[in-house]
């Protein structure tokens, strides 16, 4: 197979390395360095998809991130990904891609019937039609629309790719490696600043790759290559290609998506497919360049109509001709650059310039080359269905309102240039109030809100000389503020062509009797007539027009359509563009994989897990676990085919008849120490604490200031100035912050320290009539009799050489103890309990049995202390001290809290008082 649209030599591709790929099932080849788009164009493939609403044929419109049409479904290494721009996807061996939004095929698409029904599908069609009857929405309308629309299919399989995140800090983040990015990075780097230079494309250099300029007596591209290789050698500089800075957030935090592996057939094992960088920069330099905007005319969505800058890029970077009979339609000098490139490669272009008598260096050059130039001419409509075959053209009057006689010119592509729109997405996201610049008919950055500076074309500066000068200076000035170094940089001399003024012309009027669709938004199929309808129906705010017509709401975010839409609204409304204003730019600038946003927090690592030191024993003994916050706790220990209910009943019954053991490590534990510890507890808990003796525990309830119960638990006085507080598993972290709040802010005069010791101790609750017998076996040297260790008593013991804390506390109504040992000994303790408990028919029990036991006893827990109840509601009013003040006490006097009809927990017993 030959590549009939590839020129013999030239371009930046590697012609020594052929790469084969498939598109819609057909095999093609391209070269290393191609994008999917350039390789298809080299093979003469122009039809790549169908449009969103009318299913009209779609080709290529751009050559990069601005592409509205060529969105494909990509297949790579057994995975599939939708919403991939063919103009950004680099070719790799074995790549497969297919068209989206067409069925059964791109050449014969049933949905294209919408094109003939387009009179019935005007703006707001979906809103108006599918509202009624309401019940039809879920069953009929939505599934139909979903099938008919959409830009590809998300995989339903688990995504095997790795996506990683990274936090980074730098002095200067520079977004874009065009002339302004390179110059500012260079002077900042020379001043020793820590610089990150990000480029979304694989190649550095931006416009220098395609423009015909000289910097310091070398070509623009050679100069860029030199700067990049020098920057790469510097330890204070990070240079990243395939990396899109897509969001500008608060406090100079920017997020960048680095495509680490998308250009490879397969991601290297253990390496990420994409890496999301969270970058905090002291200064941000936005050198994001500009995007050419189209001129609107009839059937301007036909495959073969594309931006003139894209045609030039395909030729200069990829050595690909987008057509052999090109028509260039321009309102400024940029179109001539494209025409000259065609001419240099032996292709005869025709230039239609809407201006009557433009004069400039570059136009002279075009004339000298013998290029056919027609002034005051416009394209009225493209002709051809799946590809441009010819163009209806006409002269246009000076006021741009009247067309002359329509002529037809044979052509196979129409390269359009309607001048340049600065890429101000990041600028606007940072909070910068942009302003309209009449000179260039576009918005440019206004006053910076954060530490951001915009340079070059993104700032509306379109001459290289000025761009380089200000960029070198800005890089130097901003880095000097940070590093206090001031390295002299000599600014190279620049040779570039001077441009004449562009024509303020953006839309070709309809000839009499014609009703061509003139598209503004190519991805969402929004035409001039749709915006006209929206305005006729009373929509005025540009934000409303946007939502009603969906103008600029597609995945390309209106990169090529927003300004023309604004021009149209301002024209109809008779307002100037700045008073119409632009819609909000929101991150991400370009679509970002959900996987990249999620990162490594997937599957069982979607959140961290907490485990007790005894966890493995539970696992080995058929525990079925339950999530308790992020803790994993045994819910029950399954025997044979037992159900949850059967197992928990068995476990609870064994506690009532013999003895059971439960892992209570997860309960929150807080060490409260200090001379004022007793006073502090007295203020925190609702009951009295000043007289608790050493060696005794007490049950306590704490409230929030609004009177709602916050938590409960037992606290033990270990020594004079030392208390061991326990909390519920769920509230442990909140209680600690709550205590710190009062100690640091409200009562700073108290000398108390609180620190979490939850992890220090492994805990086992031993409950049941035989628990004391077992305890005695565990601690033969300790007196655990009712006298030696009374209810709510505390002693320290020796568990076969391991120091232990023994608390006599019960939540089940049974005789019960809690034993704590340091965590490294947790499993040792547990196994000893099981071993010595065997003769008492011990069984471990889980949270389900625990709940059963405490409900039987009437003890409240998390289900009752749910953040909505006061002590009375839980029958805890007996714990409210009348003698002292405590946190939340005053709230209990509120009318609602003393109302007689409050819901209240009550105990229920069977009438026969049995069973």
């Amino acid at each position: 197979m030959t590549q009939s649209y590839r020129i013999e030599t030239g371009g930046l591709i590697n012609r020594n390395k052929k790469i084969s790929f498939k598109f819609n099932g057909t095999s093609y080849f391209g070269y290393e360095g191609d994008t999917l788009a350039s390789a298809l164009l080299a093979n003469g493939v122009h039809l790549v998809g169908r449009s969103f609403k009318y299913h009209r044929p779609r080709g290529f419109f751009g050559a990069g991130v601005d592409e509205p049409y060529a969105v494909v479904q990509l297949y790579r290494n057994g995975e599939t990904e939708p919403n991939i721009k063919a103009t950004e996807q680099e070719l790799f061996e074995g790549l497969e891609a297919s068209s989206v939004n067409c069925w059964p095929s791109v050449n014969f698409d049933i949905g294209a019937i919408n094109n003939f029904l387009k009179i019935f599908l005007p703006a707001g069609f979906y809103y108006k039609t599918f509202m009624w009857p309401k019940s039809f929405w879920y069953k009929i309308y939505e599934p139909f629309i979903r099938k008919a629309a959409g830009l590809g299919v998300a995989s339903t399989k688990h995504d095997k790719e790795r996506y990683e995140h990274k936090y980074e800090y730098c002095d200067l983040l520079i977004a874009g490696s065009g002339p302004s990015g390179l110059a500012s990075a260079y002077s900042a780097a020379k001043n020793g600043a820590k610089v990150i230079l990000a480029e979304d494309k694989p190649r550095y250099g931006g416009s220098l790759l395609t423009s015909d300029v000289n910097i310091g007596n070398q070509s623009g591209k050679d100069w860029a290559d030199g700067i990049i290789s020098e920057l790469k050698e510097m330890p204070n500089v990070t240079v990243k290609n395939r990396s899109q800075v897509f969001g500008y957030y608060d406090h100079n935090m920017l997020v960048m998506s680095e495509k680490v592996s998308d250009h490879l057939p397969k991601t290297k094992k253990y390496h990420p497919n994409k890496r999301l960088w969270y970058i905090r920069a002291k200064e941000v330099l936005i050198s994001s360049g500009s995007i050419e905007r189209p001129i609107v005319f009839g059937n301007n969505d036909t495959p073969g109509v594309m931006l003139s800058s894209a045609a030039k890029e395909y030729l200069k970077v990829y050595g690909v001709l987008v057509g052999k009979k090109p028509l260039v339609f321009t309102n400024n000098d940029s179109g001539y650059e494209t025409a000259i490139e065609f001419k240099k490669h032996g292709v005869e272009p025709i230039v239609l310039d809407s201006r009557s008598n433009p004069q400039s260096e570059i136009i002279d050059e075009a004339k000298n080359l013998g290029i056919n130039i027609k002034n005051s001419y416009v394209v009225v409509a493209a002709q051809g269905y799946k590809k441009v075959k010819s163009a209806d053209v006409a002269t246009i009057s000076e006021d741009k309102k009247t067309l002359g006689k329509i002529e037809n010119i044979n052509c196979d592509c129409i390269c359009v240039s309607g001048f340049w729109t600065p890429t101000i997405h990041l600028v606007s996201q940072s909070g910068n109030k942009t302003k309209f610049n009449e000179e260039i008919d576009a918005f440019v950055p206004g006053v910076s809100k954060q530490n951001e500076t915009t340079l070059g074309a993104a700032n509306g500066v379109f001459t290289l000389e000025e761009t380089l000068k200000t960029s070198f200076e800005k890089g130097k000035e901003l880095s000097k503020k940070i590093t206090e170094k001031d390295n002299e940089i000599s600014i190279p001399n620049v040779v570039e062509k001077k441009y004449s003024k562009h024509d303020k012309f953006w839309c070709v009027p309809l000839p009499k009797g014609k009703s061509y669709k003139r598209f503004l938004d190519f991805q969402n199929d929004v035409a001039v007539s749709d915006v006209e309808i929206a305005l006729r129906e009373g929509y005025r705010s540009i934000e409303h027009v946007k939502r009603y017509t969906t103008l600029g709401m597609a995945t390309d975010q209106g990169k090529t359509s927003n300004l023309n839409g604004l021009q149209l609204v301002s024209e109809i409304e008779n307002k100037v563009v700045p008073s119409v204003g632009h819609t909000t730019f929101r991150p991400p600038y370009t679509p970002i994989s959900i996987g990249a946003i999620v990162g490594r927090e997937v599957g069982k690592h979607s959140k961290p897990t907490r485990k007790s030191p005894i966890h493995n024993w539970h696992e080995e003994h058929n525990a079925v676990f339950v999530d308790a916050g992020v803790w994993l706790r045994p819910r029950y220990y399954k025997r044979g085919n037992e159900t949850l209910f059967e197992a928990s009943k068995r476990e609870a019954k064994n506690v009532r008849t013999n003895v059971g053991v439960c892992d209570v490590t997860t309960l929150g534990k807080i060490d409260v120490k200090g001379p004022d510890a007793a006073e502090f507890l007295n203020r925190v808990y609702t009951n009295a604490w000043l007289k608790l003796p050493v060696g005794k525990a007490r049950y306590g309830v704490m409230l929030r200031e609004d009177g709602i119960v916050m938590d409960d638990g037992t606290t033990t006085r270990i020594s004079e100035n030392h208390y061991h507080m326990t909390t519920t598993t769920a509230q442990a972290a909140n209680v600690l912050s709550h205590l710190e709040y009062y100690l640091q802010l409200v009562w700073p005069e108290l000398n108390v320290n609180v620190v979490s010791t939850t992890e220090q101790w492994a805990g086992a609750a031993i409950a049941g009539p035989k628990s004391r017998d077992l305890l005695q076996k565990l601690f033969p040297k300790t007196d655990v009799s009712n006298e030696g260790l009374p209810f709510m008593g505390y002693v320290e013991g020796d568990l076969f050489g391991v120091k232990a804390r023994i608390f006599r506390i019960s939540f089940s109504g049974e005789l019960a103890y809690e034993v704590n040992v340091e965590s490294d000994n947790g499993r040792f303790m547990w196994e000893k309990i099981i071993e010595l408990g065997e003769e008492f028919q011990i069984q471990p029990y889980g949270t389900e049995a625990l709940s059963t036991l405490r409900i039987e006893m009437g003890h409240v827990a998390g289900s009752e202390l749910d953040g909505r109840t006061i002590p009375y509601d839980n029958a805890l009013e007996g714990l409210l001290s009348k003698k002292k003040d405590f946190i939340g006490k005053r709230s209990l006097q509120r009318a609602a809290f003393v109302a007689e009809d409050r819901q209240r927990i009550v105990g229920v017993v069977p009438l026969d008082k049995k069973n």
Partner: protein
Amino acid sequence: MSLISALNNVHAKGQFGDFEGKDDKNLLSISETTNLLILQIVQYKSSNSSLDNMQVDGLNLRDNPSLVSSNDNTRILWNGPRNWILVSQKKDTLNEIEQKFNDNEFAITDISHSKAIIEIEGKEAKEVLKKGCPFNFGELEKNQCLNSTYNGMSVTIDMLDDDPDKFRIFGLRSFGESLYHSITDASLEFGYIAK
């Protein structure tokens, strides 16, 4: 009695990740540190004791953010205002402290069993930390420490050395397995030896 350390169940020795074709010396090394004495030392607000007179294992408590005072056995990490974490291989340091520090002026709390401790060493160690921790590691030097989060888990990070970089990462014990997974997972790209 058999002590089981926090990462006993997950830390398996060997070479992991993208290590093939790389010199062992250039790989990251990851290990679990066990059996340390770890104490929280807090000076109460009313205490007038001059810190200049308060020495532990020959080291002074210094109320300087991010500072670590250290000798071969003991490191004292700044943990907050008038708040330190002492980490020592000498268990009897506890006795020394209990003798020297009056409990009306200082709160001493043993948290030796509260932590899972991972040591990571190698020239990419900071890169591994950057993958989960929002701290600016460009500013961190040898014998400095910080508290922060790693993939949402609270951690204390102590920079032990800078040639090559070496860190001790303290996480809460119950989070140990998750933290170990996060750190080793972030190291796969570079290849690591678990020691």
